């Protein structure tokens, strides 16, 4: 009796949470895959699932530009984020001393203001006649038709801004774990500062950089808020297309095929990543 009970315990513990995930995550995803292979539209009704794969072709041929924008904005955003985050993470990890947690807290401050409000605030700060550009134009330091909002750099800037802490933290954690004795050993072997950095510190911190890329790229590539608030109408990403197909056009099969393509591409990418690094690291980085 006792034996069967302990064997059942993990399943009983799993049951409520597992059911919740099954009903509200797995089932909707399966329904979405089915929907993505239906023909028809909202007025004349939809066909049977798994009969029509043209939505996938349409999704890539009609919205190639937005797919490309997503890849470029998120990719550039990640690169800029790494370049900005590494020095900070390095400085806090090695020179932060007793105030390390204070600096980390300061970096997390933006999270105490709503994501939408932060992004809209940037829109206001950088608006054509706002406190910055309006002043500069008033002083004739900028021409009247200069603008930032509505451009691709504004979208990339917004992406970097919103996800930067998710790059700094994993790099910091990786650098913090570097054993100072290893650096010392490098010195003792007559490596100069640059060699110690490229041969010792940088390789040891790469898992942090990889985790940061993951935490930045996935939300950035599928985001539509930054593109809509800061990019105007001309810099749409694939997230905007999915949003419009769902809320405005209501072409659910096409929207489902776009969603599944996006998720598939990102998950395959992550899977290759996870294989190279070990799943545990990626999961833990995601949790941190």
């Amino acid at each position: 009796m006792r034996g069967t009970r302990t064997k059942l315990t993990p399943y009983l513990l799993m049951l409520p949470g597992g059911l919740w995930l099954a009903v509200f995550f797995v089932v909707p995803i399966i329904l979405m895959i089915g929907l993505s292979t239906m023909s028809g539209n909202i007025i004349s009704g939809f066909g049977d699932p798994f009969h029509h794969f043209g939505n996938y072709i349409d999704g890539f041929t009609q919205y190639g530009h937005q797919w490309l924008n997503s890849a470029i904005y998120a990719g550039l955003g990640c690169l800029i984020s790494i370049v900005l985050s590494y020095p900070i993470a390095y400085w806090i990890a090695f020179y932060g001393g007793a105030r390390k947690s204070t600096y980390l807290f300061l970096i997390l401050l933006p999270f105490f203001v709503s994501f939408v409000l932060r992004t809209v605030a940037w829109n206001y700060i950088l608006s054509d006649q706002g406190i910055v550009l309006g002043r500069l134009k008033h002083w004739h330091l900028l021409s009247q038709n200069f603008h930032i909002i509505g451009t691709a750099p504004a979208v990339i800037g917004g992406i970097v801004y919103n996800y930067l802490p998710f790059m700094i933290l994993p790099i910091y954690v990786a650098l913090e774990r570097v054993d100072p004795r290893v650096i010392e050993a490098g010195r003792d072997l007559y490596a100069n500062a640059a060699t110690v950095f490229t041969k010792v510190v940088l390789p040891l911190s790469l898992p942090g950089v990889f985790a940061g890329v993951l935490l930045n790229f996935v939300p950035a590539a599928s985001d539509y808020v930054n593109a809509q608030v800061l990019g105007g109408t001309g810099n749409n990403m694939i997230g905007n297309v999915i949003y419009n197909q769902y809320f405005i056009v209501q072409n659910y099969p096409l929207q489902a095929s776009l969603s599944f393509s996006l998720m598939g591409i990102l998950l395959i990418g992550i899977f290759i990543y996870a294989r190279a690094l070990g799943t545990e690291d990626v999961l833990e980085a995601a949790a941190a």
Partner: protein
Amino acid sequence: MSAAILDGDTAPAPAAGRRPRVRQRKRRGERILHWITWALIIWLALPIAFVIMFSFNNPHGRYNITWSGFTLKYWNPSRLFGQYPDLTTALEHSFEVAVIATIGATVLGTLVGLALGKYRFRGQGATNLVQFACIAAPEVVLGSSLATFFLQARFQMGELTVIAAHIMFCLSFVAITVRARVLTLDPAVEEAAKDLGAGPWETFRLVTLPMIMPGVIAGALLAFALSIDDFITTEFTSGSFQTYPLWIWSASRQGLPPQVNVMGSIIFLIGVIFAIVYSIFSRRRA
């Protein structure tokens, strides 16, 4: 300690003559890094400063984007909560959803975390995979697939569907945090409790739960933070139900009233004070 070593203060003195220059260069490098760090902290804080500053602005038109004089009138509770009842309701909704979703996700996620951390069982790999996919899936996909599901099931979208969605995406984060904590536990402690005559429930309540509590609390805080600020999934699953971020989103096109800035500032201050108090307490306990 690592800082001291990099400073070169504790390193054995190399040949005299080279040392001062190397040291000077290192100091300069350190100073530049220090400046970069502060510059980025200021950049990160800039929109917050803007939000707080413009909560004291007295705008002439609908757009609260140019400074036109200091006023405290929007901090007056009757104007703050009375002028836009929808905004006040949306803020209440945000807290309501966050509290319920945090409780739900923490209870369910803790159980999953315990199962994954303590036991080896069939289906564990599949569970890990589903959780991983749930965390890694883009929000726009989570939101749109859930909304399609609710549509097909003819389930009226509103507060309940938002709570269901929030519990779903918070659950895995709690489970991972708790699982990480469970893995650090020594199974001998639970065995000792059993040897001393404690039943499974007593062992859990008096031994396991107190030991995993830091993980549970961390998971709950994470869930609360994720839920209260969620925008994308909420927008897809909310129907006509509005939360604070949704209200800001729909109002931002016509210009946000200063009340939004005041509420944003208050939430910011409460959050910061809470975080500082929490860190002082946890440091004292440690």
